[in-house]
């Protein structure tokens, strides 16, 4: 299941967030060799100081961290506008109805012990669960689109699991990898496709009453 942690809840989840920052160091610095700064084994950047919303995927039985992603409003400081403007020469999208997702990570420790086949299953399931969580939490707040910067590896994963996106701006080589800015539609159709790909038909967010914004876009 997915747990939401916002700035206001940070004090209630100190260990969980610490675990997330350590996982991010392992994933982004050690494995993917991104140019991120790691202090005391934790990868934390300036956007973590902006009280973002984190989605944490926790194992249903053990409660261990399986993956995480970070969401920021595009009206304020965000990575596409402030770090990767090169990807969007015409200007980064900004709207109260658009959020940005970043630091999408699946915990390597969660599948290290598994058999190879089983490990792939865990990775896929956690990835899809986090994406379902993004759609669900966006719909709770009336958010219609999410933009994100991702690399060719993530683009392949999105295609495999039927997570449709559209590239905006100009894909650019940053460091060793091609980077893309993409936009994702936070619609019921998106949630259904992901639900089918990951067999996650029930809501993935914990402790949340279903809150749907009626789709008035065609009204």
């Amino acid at each position, binding site marked *: 299941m997915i747990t*939401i942690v*916002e*700035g*206001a809840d*940070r004090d209630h989840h100190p260990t969980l967030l610490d675990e997330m920052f350590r996982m991010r160091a392992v994933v982004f610095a050690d494995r993917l060799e991104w140019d991120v700064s790691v202090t005391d084994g934790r990868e934390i950047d300036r956007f973590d100081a*902006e*009280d*973002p*919303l984190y989605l944490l995927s926790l194992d249903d039985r053990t409660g261990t961290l399986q993956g995480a992603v970070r*969401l*920021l*409003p595009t*009206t*304020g*400081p965000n990575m596409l506008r402030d770090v990767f403007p090169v990807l*969007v*020469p*015409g*200007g980064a*999208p*900004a*709207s*109260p*109805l*658009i*959020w940005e997702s970043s630091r999408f990570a699946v915990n390597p420790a969660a599948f290290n012990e598994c058999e190879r086949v089983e490990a792939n299953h865990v990775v896929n399931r956690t990835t899809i669960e986090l994406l379902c969580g993004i759609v669900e*939490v966006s719909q*709770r*707040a*009336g958010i*219609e*689109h999410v*933009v994100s910067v991702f690399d060719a590896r993530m683009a392949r994963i999105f295609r495999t699991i039927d997570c*449709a996106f*559209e590239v*905006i701006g100009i894909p650019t080589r940053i460091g060793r990898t091609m980077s893309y800015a993409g*936009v994702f*539609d936070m*619609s019921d159709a998106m949630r259904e496709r992901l639900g089918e790909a990951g067999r996650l038909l029930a809501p993935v967010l914990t402790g949340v009453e279903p*809150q*749907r*914004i*009626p789709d*008035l*876009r065609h*009204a």
Partner: protein
Amino acid sequence: MILQGLLSDNVQLTELLSRLESIADGAELVAFMEFLVDAYDLKTCAYLGFDVTARPEQEPYLAVTYTQEWIEHYKAQQYVNIDPAVHIGMRRILPTDWENFDLRSDDVRRLFGDAIEFGLGRHGISLPVHGQHCDKALVSITCDAGILEWRHRRLQYMRDFQMLALYIHQAVLRLEGRVVEQMRLSPRERECLQWAGEGKTAWETAVILGLSERTVRCYLEGARYKLGAANNAHAVNKAGKTSLLSQLP
């Protein structure tokens, strides 16, 4: 468009936004918020802005439709120190429904009891605003509808006030002498808006430009926000006035 669900029949979001643009001082801003209270059948509307001026150590900016009695009572009781709407709402990006506050503390229960006594609605939501330069604000609205009616309206309130809160915040920045940068439209945003101006739907524009419909909607959302527009027609109109549409690449 989106707002007509809750707004009384003779009010348009376009009109609300142009009224916001002509606000010249704090009193007019409060009058505008009082107008919103009427138009949306609310009890109160409050704006609290942080870091809205370039001057350091500045007190938060406050614009509220509350009665003077409630403001004085709130200050005298130093409720700002315990008010969860302020302390929790400001540190979220999701809108906060006051129903979800932890009422185990006696002080917090007393605050909400007093609030109803002083004329705030029984239900409330607080919407955080995240500005371009780490400036932040919180817009809170209260309503006295029955619980079922409230649950029904709440989602639409959230959506409308996500936009209104941001535009109120920008009006405050303007009043405080902060330069609100006129944001450039990206080439794609301009193109989509031009086709909207020709009367094309998002789907038709998608076909013309070889994009998906959702991407066209995303570009139009960005363009509407940058122009402070309520809907596509309003955006086309405003872009025309500032000749943004003619600046083709």
